[in-house]
């Protein structure tokens, strides 16, 4: 059994990660951190770089959590990557961060969170920035 968390280097992503860590400790399960990019732009600020990944790695290691960090770049969007990972590892919880989107923004760009919420086969825990505990 595993917990899957969709991580992005933003306050929302941090909140999701913090929440996921506390969930993983409570139930003593493996934590799977997913940080993906479509990889079609040269610069993607939502794709964590080496030092950030290292600091997450350290943080999880010091907390003694069994963890896997994955950074798939396969041209799929973040929702698909999180859902894939959840299915593959038979996850019993997905943790994601929510951010405020305008209706127009959602209409044009779609919403990663919404897709995960609607399509996941397991419970989804949605956290907002600064809410995790």
């Amino acid at each position, binding site marked *: 059994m595993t917990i899957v968390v969709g991580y992005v280097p933003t306050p929302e992503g941090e909140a999701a990660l913090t929440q996921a860590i506390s969930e993983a400790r409570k139930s003593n399960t493996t934590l799977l951190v997913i940080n993906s*990019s*479509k*990889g*079609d*732009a*040269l*610069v*993607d*600020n939502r*794709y964590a*770089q080496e030092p950030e990944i290292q600091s997450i790695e350290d943080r999880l290691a010091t907390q003694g959590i069994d963890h896997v960090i994955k*950074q798939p*770049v*396969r*041209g799929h969007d973040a929702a698909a990557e999180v859902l894939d990972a959840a299915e593959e590892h038979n996850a019993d919880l997905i943790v994601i961060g929510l951010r405020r989107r305008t209706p127009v923004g959602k209409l044009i760009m779609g919403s990663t969170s919404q897709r995960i919420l609607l399509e996941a086969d397991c419970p989804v825990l949605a956290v907002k920035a600064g809410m995790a505990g």
Partner: protein
Amino acid sequence: MDVFSSLMDGFATALTPMNFLYAVIGVLLGTAVGVLPGLGPAMTVALLLPVTYVLEPTSAFIMFAGIYYGGMYGGSTTSILLNTPGESSSVVTAIEGNKMAKAGRAAQALATAAIGSFVAGTIGTALLAVFAPIVVKFAVSLGSPSYFAIMVLALLAVTAVLGSSRLRGFASLGLGLAIGLVGIDSVTGQRRLTFGQPLLADGLDIVVVAVAIFAVGEALWVAAHLRRNPLQVIPVGRPWMGKEDWKRSWKPWLRGTAFGFPFGALPAGGAEIPTFLSYVTEKRLSKHPEEFGHGAIEGVAGPEAANNAAAAGTMTPLLALGLPTNATAAVMLAAFTSYGIQPGPQLFASQGPLVWALIASLFIGNFLLLIINLPLAPLWAKLLQLPRPYLYAGILFFATLGAYSVNLQAFDLVLLLVLGALGFMMRRFGLPVLPLILGVILGPRIEGQLRKTLQLSAGDPAGLWSEPIAVGVYVLIALILLWPFLFKLIRRNRPAAMPAGILAKSGSSEPTDAGGSGSHGSHRADATSGGDGDGDG
């Protein structure tokens, strides 16, 4: 003061609202393509050529010049903030610039790059205004044999000196010359390489060739290597420099200019060699040699000044002799021809107002670039977040539109695709694009001079070396071609001489050389990991 009054007339033309607007559009576009790796000013000018047929030639060239200078500025932003050179000429900037940015001094690196580019560009343009008329005076006395020799020199030098592999360079040159041959022979009316296809009889339009090789080839290449781990831009505020930075920057700027201009003006110039030389020099002269490799401001100031001075230098042979020395200049030469303007030494006489307006617009463009780049560099870096499928879809659209609009022939689209596939294969097998483009554009002009020479000498090949300058140039060509063999010989003899002594001398020169080639190797590696550091002008 003839130059001065002509230049002032040029400013009057370049500062009319319409021309000024085109200068602004040019520098904005140029900076954008400079920032984006894989897109270069050469490709942009080629894409815009068909669109600008409706414009006054003066306006079009003012815009092209803006694109050319803008590309030089934009490349440094990507080098510094992303460690991915936007242009091949800013590869060296990435070495120190990115280190500076990582050490939290991105603002100073961007500032010294932008101000250094401005200083070098302005001095370079002033040198261009002074030297071009002198070169013209000398050039009008040249006959066909000398011209032929100089053009051959330019082709061979670009092919043999630039790039890592001579064999690949010459293969590319051969392809270019072959493409340039297609069509009806101007003297005898014979069909060459037309394969019985009447549509090929007019020859391949240079716009189609350039757009296919640059735009379609690059788009296919990117499509084949679309996904890669994305990077993050190092965040910066507004670029600025402290007193210490100014003190450490101004000398490298001037030295970079001194390297850049002559190299740009030489037929084998280009901006890569002087940027590298400037880097090595600054490293040797710096009072803070320990900072090199950890973000020394001199290592950004010098090369950035050098590449902009080289850009100005390149304009000298283009305007004075009709001789392009890099891809952008080559496409601009093609633009002259497509506007019905005969490039060459007579250009200053026949198109004086246009040429001086162009030179004036270079001054204006430089100034514009300084004011749009200094405060806005972090904004330009945002362009890199653009998903590349959108970007290249747009480029392919313009490429197709441009190729079709030249002659309104569907056949040109077939050519576009075939040559685009060729461009892709060249990138795949590491063939440089520049010799091909120069071959296509200079090939027919070289042939013209050769035919003229041989007609004048009634078919006697001795006519080729009937002028002293031609003979001198042939000696140079021989030197360039034989240089690798001579180099090998010298190297073979050297180990024998080394133990004999000269310890102090070799001791002082060897480590710097080794350090230089070491960093050269590392920027090569950066360029290849960047993927499309080459392939543009």
